[in-house]
């Protein structure tokens, strides 16, 4: 008996030891900091660093590993990003080969998380900040990528572009003078127009004899007519009850992008942070939506409209009357809708009174995070030089329109645009895929280069005219560690609660009599603490 007990003890101790040993072994390389200084590759020092030139000695090649979300062109037009005309040209000119690490579409966030926890970083990340919960800045704070600000001396081209304007500097540097990425700029520092808007059925408008609605009341009238004319779903609503990207709600005076993750659902009025559910406009919107729902003007199954496949099914359904979507879908609808009489036009942001301006819409910034260099790369110099070349005057045009002049033309006013080979491709490829095939990842962007036709441009301009984006908060706002902790411990609960209640109010499952209690509960959950923390961050941003 004693022998048996002793043996059990020994076996237990051994198994425990084995477990501990294996776990330790797995974590061994987590603390080793990889040296920088390009020990793995020699960067050719050949001539003017601002010009496009070979980075690798003749006869040799170097390879950089780049993580990058996929694109619709891959698999249809080409096998990998290396097949784009731009990338082939860059490889010829610089001698640097790129090995692309491309996660399966839809799994970018998980893939990035796994990559980071496995400690095996690529050399460069493209657009990782979009899928990381704390954004591009968070990647730097967590030690995944380097602080570019420390290397500006080695980046003549980037530095030249960066210092060209104040807004570029303000958006790229953090409050503490760090820079988490190589930021992408707009040529004239005007935000790129977004082509997200409101589409409404022109053929139905003609049928009921109404013009494009401009105010909320006009929308109500038009939708009622649509319903009378037999449309089952006069207005498609997103499953959260709010159209994406601040569409449709701007006229009521609030911005609300309640997605969670790295998107923070605040807006600002004159430098003061506001949270939409606490404001009057929010209640007005919910009441309006509730009324429309009760009268059958909103798709009764809107709760299931929560995926791209669901959207695409309904967008071209003859029973759908209007919805928020990329305006380019109007062209697509013409081609693939089953009912050829279906035609869509863009409706401007609705307002309360005709002639009102709105102050918030889809987020637009003249500066956004682009490429980041990993902290563990052993090809730091090569990566720095390679990314710097994207800002060189030799490369900017090619990255926007491609190295092959047969795909674009120069207009009379000196501006450039893609020609029909891209927008009306004879082989039937979509413009957005053709653009990817020809050009790629411009770091300094020409405005509106991806908007193909006059009609679309006109609609986008219309939307831009009404909106001055004064309420937007820049996405390069940064929160300190303590502020992040406050946000992360309070906000997810509030976001969850509001999301649940907003749908219930729209569907009439909750009566508006209890609305004040709803607002009070948000206060009880600690929203003021989060707002004050966010306000501090905004103040810091404004004083950069």
């Amino acid at each position, binding site marked *: 008996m004693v022998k048996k007990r002793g043996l059990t003890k020994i076996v237990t101790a051994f198994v425990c030891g084995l477990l501990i040993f294996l776990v330790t072994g797995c974590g061994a390389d987590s603390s080793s900091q990889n040296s920088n200084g390009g020990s793995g590759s020699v960067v050719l020092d050949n001539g003017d660093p601002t010009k496009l030139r070979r980075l690798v000695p003749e006869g040799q090649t170097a390879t950089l590993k780049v993580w990058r979300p996929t694109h619709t062109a891959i698999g249809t037009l080409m096998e990998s990003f290396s097949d784009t005309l731009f990338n082939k040209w860059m490889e010829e000119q610089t001698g640097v080969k790129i090995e692309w690490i491309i996660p399966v579409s839809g799994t970018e966030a998980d893939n990035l998380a796994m990559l980071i926890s496995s400690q095996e970083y690529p050399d460069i990340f493209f657009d990782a900040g979009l899928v990381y919960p704390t954004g591009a800045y968070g990647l730097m704070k*967590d030690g995944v990528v380097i602080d570019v600000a420390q290397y500006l001396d080695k980046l003549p081209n980037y530095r030249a572009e960066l210092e060209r304007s104040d807004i570029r500097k303000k958006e790229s540097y953090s409050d503490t003078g760090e820079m988490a990425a190589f930021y992408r700029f707009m040529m004239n520092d005007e935000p790129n127009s977004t082509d997200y808007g409101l589409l409404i059925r022109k053929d139905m408008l003609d049928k009921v004899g109404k013009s494009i609605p401009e105010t909320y009341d006009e929308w109500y009238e038009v939708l009622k007519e649509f319903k009378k004319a037999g449309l089952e779903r006069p207005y498609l609503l997103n499953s959260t009850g709010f159209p994406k990207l601040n569409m449709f709600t701007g006229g009521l005076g609030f911005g609300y992008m309640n997605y969670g993750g790295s998107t923070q659902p605040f807006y600002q009025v004159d430098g003061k942070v506001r949270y939409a559910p606490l404001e009057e406009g929010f209640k007005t919107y919910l009441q309006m939506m509730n009324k429309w729902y009760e009268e059958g003007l909103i798709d009764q199954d809107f*709760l299931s409209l*929560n995926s791209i496949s669901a959207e695409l099914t309904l967008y071209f359904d003859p029973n759908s009357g209007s919805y928020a979507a990329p305006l380019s879908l109007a062209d697509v609808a013409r081609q693939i809708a089953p009912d050829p009489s279906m035609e869509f036009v863009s409706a401007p942001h609705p307002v309360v009174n005709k002639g009102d301006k709105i102050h918030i819409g889809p987020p637009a910034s003249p500066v956004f995070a682009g490429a980041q260099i990993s902290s563990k790369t052993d090809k730091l110099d090569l990566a720095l030089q390679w990314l710097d070349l994207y800002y060189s005057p030799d490369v900017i045009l090619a990255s926007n329109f491609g190295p092959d002049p047969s795909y674009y033309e120069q207009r009379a006013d000196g501006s450039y645009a893609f020609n029909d080979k891209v927008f009306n491709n004879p082989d039937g490829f979509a413009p957005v895929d053709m653009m990817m095939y020809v050009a790629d990842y411009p770091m300094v962007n020409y405005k509106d280069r991806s908007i193909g036709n006059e009609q679309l441009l006109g609609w986008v301009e219309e939307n831009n005219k009404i909106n001055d984006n004064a309420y937007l908060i820049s996405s390069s706002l940064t929160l300190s560690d303590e502020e992040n902790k406050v946000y992360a411990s309070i906000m997810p609960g509030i976001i*969850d609660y509001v999301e649940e209640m907003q749908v*219930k109010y729209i569907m009439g499952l909750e009566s508006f009599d209890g609305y004040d209690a709803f607002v009070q509960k948000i206060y009880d959950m600690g929203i003021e603490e989060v707002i004050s923390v966010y306000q501090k961050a905004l103040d810091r941003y404004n004083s950069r």
Partner: protein
Amino acid sequence: MRQLIANYKRHKMIYWLTLPVVVYFLIFSYLPMAGLIMAFQDFKPSKGFFGSEWVGFQHFVDFFTSPNFWRVTRNTIVLSLMELAFGFPAPILFALMLNEVRNRLFKRTVQTISYLPYFLSTAIIAGLIRDFMSSTGPISTTLAPIMGKAVNLLSVPEYFRAIFISTNIWQFMGYISIIYLAALTRVDPELYDAARMDGAGYWKQCWHVTLPGISSTIIIMFILNMGQLLSVNFEKILLLYNSAIYETADVISTYIYRQGILSQNYGYSTAVGLFNSVIAMLLILGANYVSKKYSETHLF
């Protein structure tokens, strides 16, 4: 130890046969348990196990004091109990009924049809359910005259539990009944003859011969089921639910999924997972103990 070696010498092949399975469980079930340490840390992937800050029981406290804790726990328990009360007897009854069918062709056909849904993935089943329950789906339009108007049945909190349990039964009943049917074939036919001679009618036979005959199978299945109790088919709920029915549909796992997505809070999710597993383990041990006391069947 000597007994072990003697046993081994006699049944060498059995030990070698089980070796791969034992190694599998060591590597994939026991080794990852070391990761449970995340439940007590503010885990950040970039810092790893040894760099992340230690927070002790903070995650558990956060969970127990979170605003929705009672609601999600209640829903988890209610759904599990309903699954037990309705989903557990269903295959047994089905097997009993099927056992009485004399026509072999009919019996085989019914069996095949009934266990086909098992092979459909949860995503397909959820898609089917959403289509059927939508306001233009067959079920809503059939029920429209009774309910006043055609409504998306998945937007009404009161209906969710019924929809969830009934579709579960539909999917799994056929497949699980195979186990009971196999057990039923082992009941000695002579016992039936003896009972009939004693004057037992159909129901008495069932109660006194059939059920006791398969009682050991029933008890083992029951104990195994207890372990699954708290993991109420998370994927299916996730695919079916929406914010309008959180009241009845939101369970612990889906709630944590949302929290996790919003803040990529690995430590928190691990802590709640640990909580789940501990409860499940207590349930299995409890069920095993009770069955040990009151019958001869027990798992361990």
